[in-house]
């Protein structure tokens, strides 16, 4: 095992940075504004929900020689050490040396896409990512790319127009490709073949191993460590709850945890894979699963957040667990060299408590391919369609034979202290003819499964009623295919 480094190495635009002696929980946003005095990137909320701090991260694409991968993230909840080995691009880097605006910047000016201008740098960076990918004309895809950027002034029209008007980097643009190859080479040279990062700072320690074996070893030594993946939850512990995290063990650089593989139709998702990484494979399992992933957070959040984190933090309103439970997903946990595999639903013991021992970590999630005749449906109910936290999430895997329900798995989020199966409801349905009467019985049974709470997202009454109505929706969709039942989600886009 190569020794771990203590300096954080990355490119800020095209300038090399080697940073030592930084508090490892310094956010990228604070680093940019306070240390680099680059104040173009704004703080709007410090929780990854408004997008004013959007920056683009570039990483070497290991699958294509000389290629780079780019993604947008929220700088306000990313910690500086996670920049190691990457290129950080901000709104300051887009203008040409001769002072001319980048095409996305020019388009924003031309379409009157800025009013107060405070959200604008973040939008520019999301548009820049669209541009890097070759441009986009489709409204749905533009919505998805911009869902994580809030604008309170324009009503978005001019910004959508700018997205369409700015075009994109040509796939065969020789200059652009050569620029990317140059960056990739520099990044490789910068970090070399090292064994990751180990930072010891008076305010906290930080480990970023590069292999799961090393990760397992570190966690055995530091069983109380905070495991950091995308930081889309942990980041808020720092910015909102002012917590000290020590030590932090970052799994985002663990190469073998980032894989998304299909084996015998089952999808094996490493705990370090982001939602964006897993989106395509999950969408292939079931259209509704893909649509569900599309509606998790925003593009910036999906580019950072992981399925593993969504599960491991045990939130009762995490979006993936109910769907994965309905699909019969399994979890692989590891401590040291010992692995165990459990049904996902068994992982959630009660609110705030999961079946994970100290020093143990979620290694991967296995999502089985649904059996041939099984149908999967999932609905996320929230106040806003995009980038909202769920009030109720209902997920259903149903198998019908000769008009009767031979099998059904139902799981809900937002209805209890953990993501949970509706077992009484399932029992009321299995083996019954799929009729109005069974539906009625099932609706009533649901009220025995859950006693949902009232909070700012929804009342307990509404949650129960919607959960019951989702059963009805399932019934209609599986028995009357001609009936329109959805306002969103008919088309599933990946990204």
């Amino acid at each position: 095992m190569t020794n771990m480094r203590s300096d954080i190495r990355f490119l800020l635009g095209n300038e090399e940075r080697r940073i030592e002696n930084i508090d490892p929980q310094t956010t990228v946003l604070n680093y940019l504004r306070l240390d680099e005095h680059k104040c173009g990137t704004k703080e709007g909320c410090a929780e990854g929900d408004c997008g004013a701090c959007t920056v683009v991260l570039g990483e070497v694409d290991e699958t294509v020689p000389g290629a780079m991968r780019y993604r947008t993230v929220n700088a306000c909840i990313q910690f500086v050490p996670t920049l190691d080995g990457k290129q950080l691009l901000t709104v300051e880097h887009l203008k040409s040396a001769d002072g001319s605006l980048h095409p996305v910047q020019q388009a924003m000016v031309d379409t009157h896409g800025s009013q107060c201008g405070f959200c604008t740098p973040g939008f520019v960076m999301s548009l820049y990512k669209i541009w890097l990918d070759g441009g986009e004309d489709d409204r749905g895809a533009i919505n998805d790319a911009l869902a994580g950027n809030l604008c309170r002034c324009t009503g978005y029209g001019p910004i959508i127009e700018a997205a369409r008007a700015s075009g994109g980097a040509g796939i065969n643009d020789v200059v652009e490709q050569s620029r990317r190859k140059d960056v990739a080479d520099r990044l490789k040279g910068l970090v070399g073949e090292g064994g990751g990062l180990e930072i010891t700072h008076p305010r906290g320690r930080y480990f970023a191993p590069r292999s799961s074996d090393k990760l397992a070893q570190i966690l055995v030594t530091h069983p109380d460590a905070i495991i950091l993946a995308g930081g889309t939850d942990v980041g808020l512990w720092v910015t909102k709850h002012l917590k000290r995290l020590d030590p932090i063990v970052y799994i985002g650089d663990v190469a073998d945890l980032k894989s998304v593989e299909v084996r015998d139709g089952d999808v094996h998702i490493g705990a370090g894979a982001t939602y964006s990484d897993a989106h395509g494979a999950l969408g292939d399992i079931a259209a509704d699963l893909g649509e569900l992933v599309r509606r998790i957070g925003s593009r910036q959040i999906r580019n950072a957040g992981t399925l593993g984190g969504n599960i491991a933090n045990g939130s009762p309103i995490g979006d993936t667990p109910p769907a994965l439970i309905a699909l019969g997903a399994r979890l692989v946990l590891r401590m040291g060299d010992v692995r165990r595999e459990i049904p996902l639903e068994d992982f959630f013991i009660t609110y705030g408590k999961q079946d994970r021992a100290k020093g143990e970590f979620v290694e991967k999630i296995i999502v089985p391919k649904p059996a041939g005749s099984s149908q999967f449906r999932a609905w996320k109910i929230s106040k806003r369609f995009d980038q909202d936290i769920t009030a109720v999430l209902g997920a259903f895997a149903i198998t019908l034979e000769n008009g009767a329900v031979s099998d059904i798995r139902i799981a809900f989020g937002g209805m209890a202290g953990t993501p949970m199966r509706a077992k009484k409801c399932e029992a009321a349905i299995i083996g019954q003819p799929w009729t109005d009467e069974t539906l009625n019985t099932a609706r009533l049974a649901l009220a025995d499964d859950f006693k949902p709470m009232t909070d700012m997202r929804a009342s307990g009454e509404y949650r129960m009623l919607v959960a019951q109505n989702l059963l009805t929706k399932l019934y209609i969709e599986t028995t009357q295919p001609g009936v329109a039942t959805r306002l969103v989600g008919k088309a599933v886009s990946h990204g």
Partner: protein
Amino acid sequence: MGETREILAPTTGLNGGVRSASKHDSGPKHVTGEAVYIDDIVEPYGTLHLAPGAATIAHGRITRLDLSKVRSAPGVVCVLTADDIPGANDVSPAHTHDEPVLPDGIVQFYGQPVFCVAAETREQARAATKLAEIEYEELPAILSIDDAMAQKSYVAEPHVMKRGDSASALASAPHRHAARMVIGGQDHFYLEGHISFAIPQEDGDVFIHCSTQHPSEVQHNIANVLGRPANAVTVEVRRMGGGFGGKETQSMQWAALAAIVAVKTGRPAKMRLDRDDDMIMTGKRHDFVIDYDIGFDDDGRICGADIQFAANCGFSADLSSAIADRAMFHTDNAYYLGDVEIRSYRCKTNLVSNTAFRGFGGPQGMVAIERIIDEIALTLGLDPLDVRIANYYGGEGRNITPYYMTVEDSVLPELTRDLLKSSDYRARRAEIEAFNAQSPVIKRGIAITPVKFGISFTTTFLNQAGALVHVYQDGSVHLNHGGTEMGQGLFIKVAQVVAEEFQIDLDNIKITATNTGKVPNTSATAASSGADMNGMAARNAARTIKERLVAFASNHYGVDATAIHFLPGRVRVGDKADISFAELVKMAYLGRVSLSATGYYATPKIHYDRETASGRPFYYFAYGMACSEVMIDTLTGENRVTRVDILHDVGQSLNPAIDRGQVEGGFIQGMGWLTTEELWWDDSGRIRTHAPSTYKIPACSDRPDDFRLELWSSGRNVEKTIHRSKAVGEPPLMLAISVHRAIAHAVASVAGHKIVPALDTPATPEAVLKAVARLAATSAVAVANSASATGTAGNDKVPAASGAGMVGVGAPQAGV
């Protein structure tokens, strides 16, 4: 100099005069991150960072305030409490003396700042606030409008507007309808939160960069808090990252704290609120409860109305009196109400003090009357649009508002005609009915609503503005005025006015930060009046200089003044000279002519007697109309807007691109208020929607795919406003009421348009599902009753929902 000629198109040869679609002056700086907001200003050495420490109860007496651990925390330099305020402990904007900088003994809402920490870093200041030990003796808290009404808890006296005998009119009306509507508040969610940055000056003076729409009031309040004269305080605002009314009065407290620390320590002091603190500690749009009783005839014409408003003002008065008044002024929206009585109660509660928000109470008044019109239509089985048209202000006898102002400038008949045609409303409404008949789960709805919005501050003395224009020797111009730039494009519009006046290209004009040292005693940039008033003041300043230049040229060349013309980029002096503006300026300078002038403007014609609730509070009205189409999911209550057609009257636009941005952005913001934006407090009076994770403003995909916006081409202000334009900041927000009404239309389809949906705001999925469930249950009862009467069994296969206390719709058509 007389009234200028009217200009119907941009002046040929002039780059950036009025009516040109000039780009926002800060556009290139916004997109590169080079635009400097207050938090981006390079900090002088020694800058301190402030953080507020919040109360954790809604109402109570502080019995112990131990800040010793706060004071000894790392990096802490000083900690302020009420005892540390050198002058008056008061930042109330309307001289009500009910809003302390920091409370002296009594906490009045959950989250109220009790103390303030100044530390070397912001992180240290925030961390230290958590170390306070505070004990309270809790007092009863009033947390709802109903409780406040029951206890007669008010921040100001109730107010009444009355015309005729509403009781008799109601008693004799052919039809009568009474109901209650609950209207939610709204957080401004400007992307830049509140920030103040105070830099100490000599003599104990202070210079403050403040994100405020009202620099003069910040100046006067801070002077008062410091116990100093106004000339000891200078406030500057280059730009805000959004305002929307939220920075009209709510900046005071933060500016005061920063100023106190700066003066006390001799170090620069910056107070930037965290988003959560901003949403917890600053006021919002008032939520209202409205009770109404309406009498109307067979055509849906209103003949009598009794309308009672109760506004949740929070713990202090702030601007609530004027806001509640404006709700009353807009109770009528576009309609003649017959004999009417409007009562308004300004409720005092133990919640954050509510404040100005785009529309300033007007939207709440209008959303109620628009629901009322729909309910009349539903009762009579008419198309709501026809009921709207029947009630429009008309000629003699039907053109007096409840506050006795004659409506002289209505363009709604023409706007209605044009929008009906461009939106194809009638055919689409019929098509939607057909769709709904065959779609059991998804229902569609459509509605047209008008906007008539009064322009002027209803507090008459506020309708004044000042400007300062310098012309330098090279012909370049320095422009300053009392209006503030919060993104709305005020600076570019006023610069266009000056460019037009001098006939010079826009890029010769330097737009400068609003500064109380340059133009004093200004009014807030509010009430949509920014361009109307500051544009006029700047034009007057430019004209003063122009008159001097004309007099100089006339004398110098021996040419009659009437033969001197300012043409694009040059000045023609009879047949004696044709020179550039810069050449004339240089000559005038050498001829010892003053090239600097102030300009002033006071809005004419307006007067209002609040005692009798009568007069002409508004110089004119701004008009617009919108047609919105929506879809709802009757199983979940989810809803979305699918098409919008807008026709809006901005008079003769100063800048059509900027105006379109205001209309479009205002509409989407109004749509958010009426749909997804829900404020939610728990039982302890603590707001739980205090961040974008829990408070949902519209996102990109919420903008309807099909959005058709036109500035009304026939628009022209009948009053002599700046280049006959109309104010555009607030009115478009209320175009979004059409969305709410369209949702109600879709909901009503569930019961065959026989039952009033009684939809409140915001129309969240929960609110819509509740309305749908109530209608489905009511109509199911009606069906069951009629079925049993005829002896036939209902074929209603509704799975009986059992949501505790809530009747489920459960798709009545399921299984059909």
